[in-house]
């Protein structure tokens, strides 16, 4: 039990070395960041939507700020821990206040916060903007699946935990979405679009985004919605505009419309049958 400090020895004189060390580390870091050739992704993805890319850039900006501040603070802690470890029983100078320093580390963070907030507002206004567009999708989430319908057309896609639905959207044009829920809270989330929005009973949420490239992307429910929350997936297929319009037209034939209606009916029956009468306790399905 070393409950007493080590034998005394005078503290050495303090040098300016750490400050120079900090400058040595900070300078090339700043230079690297300012060069801007390849800003790292910091774990995020570039996104397949226009607004998602703005979000991605905001993410990079925040990450640089966080890395610089975090690195600086951890460096200070490491220096303090190494340089000021107990070298004896001497009692150090009992200094308690340094007002200019305290004001500095109050004012500088406030300025930084407002800079970050400024960029946030700029990107946020882009992300929540809803430009006028003829292409509309109504998304309805339910326990435990998704229904994608296209207002003004007969197009309809429904799917649930046994058969994940695939939402078709055109590339290169803004698409407007209306998100509703019939029962619980659900979360509409597509990782590659850097976007999510909750579907809440009684609330009609609206948003808009524009895909950049064609492809298929995974999406899933992110808000806990009961027993089969873990299985509530969907996919988004981004196709060219002519392909999208041709696909929509298929539902205009009587056969197509009937098939869509039938699919809808089947899924609604299946959902009601897979809802356990008592969705709590040990009645849950073994995974």
């Amino acid at each position: 039990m070393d409950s007493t400090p080590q034998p005394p020895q005078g503290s050495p004189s303090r040098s300016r070395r750490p400050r120079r060390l900090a400058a040595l580390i900070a300078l090339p870091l700043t230079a690297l960041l300012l060069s801007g050739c390849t800003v790292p992704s910091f774990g995020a993805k570039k996104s397949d939507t226009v607004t998602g890319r703005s979000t991605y850039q905001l993410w990079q900006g925040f990450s640089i700020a966080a890395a610089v501040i975090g690195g600086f603070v951890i460096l200070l802690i490491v220096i303090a821990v190494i340089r000021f470890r107990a070298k004896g029983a001497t009692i150090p100078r009992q200094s308690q206040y340094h007002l200019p320093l305290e004001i500095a580390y109050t004012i500088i963070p406030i300025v930084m916060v407002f800079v970050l907030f400024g960029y946030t507002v700029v990107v946020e206004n882009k992300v929540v903007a809803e430009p006028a567009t003829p292409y509309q999708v109504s998304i309805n989430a339910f326990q435990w699946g998704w229904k994608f319908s296209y207002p003004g057309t007969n197009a309809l896609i429904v799917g649930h935990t046994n058969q994940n639905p695939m939402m078709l959207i055109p590339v290169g044009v803004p698409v407007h979405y209306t998100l509703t829920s019939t029962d619980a809270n659900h979360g509409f989330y597509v990782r590659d679009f850097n976007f999510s929005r909750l579907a809440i009973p009684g609330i009609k949420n609206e948003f808009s985004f524009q895909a950049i490239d064609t492809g298929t992307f995974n999406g899933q429910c992110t808000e806990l919605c009961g027993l089969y929350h873990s299985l509530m997936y969907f996919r988004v297929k981004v196709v060219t505009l002519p392909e999208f319009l041709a696909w929509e037209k298929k539902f205009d034939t009587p056969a197509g419309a009937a098939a869509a209606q039938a699919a809808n009916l089947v899924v609604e029956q299946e959902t009601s049958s897979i809802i356990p009468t008592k969705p709590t306790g040990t009645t849950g399905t073994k995974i």
Partner: protein
Amino acid sequence: MSEHVDTLTHDDHASHEHHGATGILNWLTTTDHKIIGMSYTITSVVMMLIGGALAEVIRIQLTTPTGSLVTFSQYNQLFTMHGSVMIYLFAGPFAFGALANIIVPLQIGAPDMAFPRLNALSYWLYLTGSLTMLAGFFTTGGAANFGWVGYAPMTDSVNAPGVGTDLWIGALLLTGFSAIFTGVNLVATIYYLRAPGMTLFRMPIFTWNLLVTAILILLAFPVLTAGLIMLFCDRHFSTHIYTVVGGGSPVLWQNIFWFWGHPEVYILALPFFGMVTEIIPVFSRKPVFGYKGMIFATLSIAALSLGVWAHHMFTTGVVLLPFFSIMSLLIAVPTGIKIFNWIGTMWGGQIWFSTAMLMSIGFVITFLIGGLTGIYLASPPLDFFTHDTYFVVAHFHSVVMALVLGAMAGLYYWAPKMTGYLLDERLGKIQFWLLFIGTQVFTFPQYIVGLNGMPRRMALYPNSPEWQTLNVWSSIGALMIGISTLVFAINCFYSWKRTPAGDNPWDAHTLEWFTTSPPPHHNYYRLPKIRSERPTWDYNHPDKPALVHGHNHDGESS
């Protein structure tokens, strides 16, 4: 500052030992804040062990994408009860019930809390509430299964018909009233029972933080209580406050819950900030740097925390994004001041790396990580794509694991005062490294897997080798944290009655180290003169007062 006369607070008749019930009867009937505080400490640490065990089951389930250890329903119960036990039954009661109860009256030189019987009631309500919540596991429907936030409509009688839900609501009401009574008690104690000379701006930071915490409790908890009563009415008396069908709104619950829930984050955090603010100066052998700045930082955190609740609701689409964004970002400023003040305290000190100090430094680093990732989440566009993913889970686990490090720091620091015996330092350091490294191994893969798109509260996840690797690493971290907790338990038994601590083993600053360990029934036979925020230090080191710009408090240069 040269004259030090002991002030007698009791006459000689009062300085004999307290005579009353002993043993189990004493424990059941006591109104002594120290015994109640010990009951709180033991109960909340047991709750931490229960919550931790639930977490380990969750982490085992997630080591494979198609884990088959538990059913969907059991998994939902597991994470709900893990979160509920940790937040409602461990972190809060430990923060404002356990150490606060023992230390606050000691730090201000009071003989007990202002309302000792109310204090006992608080503890018994807390214990009853804890047992009520855990009883959910033994009902046929199982325990609560809608997440610790209990979002409507998952808590309604259709989605959650089980008794477990009602037990959960009842438990929150009981522990909520316990918290409110503790809040009343702390405010009254701190305002009215301070010893002569203990002005507000001479109070230790821990007591200051508990004062602010108690005020936040009084502002926030009644809102939750009201919300829970409305929820109970929805479930049993056919009201439609949170249900769309009768004209209610599920989002109302989110507003009410987070109006409590975000101040609650600081109700949990401020006491732990206070603990490390006591510990870092003592083991740096310096006064706390920027004492008054520290207090104003605490006050502004508390004020801002009342205006940030909707940052949990950015993706609902029904909140004013910029307002809650700037309010949330601004909290980084006072929090940053605290971190710089802790570093400033260490700067130029003679740092003694006891377990308590190591835990405190671990707290600062882990809290820094949790704070920096919190800044992202305060920005609505960034919150949109990380909301409800493991990035958020990792963020708040960095924060709460920092609080666990803080709790351990507090226990290692104050256990000698509470029990009279030191905890073993060797075992303590093993525990620290396991806990600190385990925490980072546990959270970092979660940040990455969250950015890769893994949502929270998933019993299964897509079959991706990358995600599985990250989840396995996270589980390894959780296992290390679990082992560190076992080391702590071993240490408690190993150190029991082994090394007597003496009154002041750390050469500490504040009043509680002036009395015996453990303190007598009414805490003090005598008190030193209180002329600064470090009365015990001033008594032991009359020649080393704190310096303000090179001057001591009397304006003499030094």
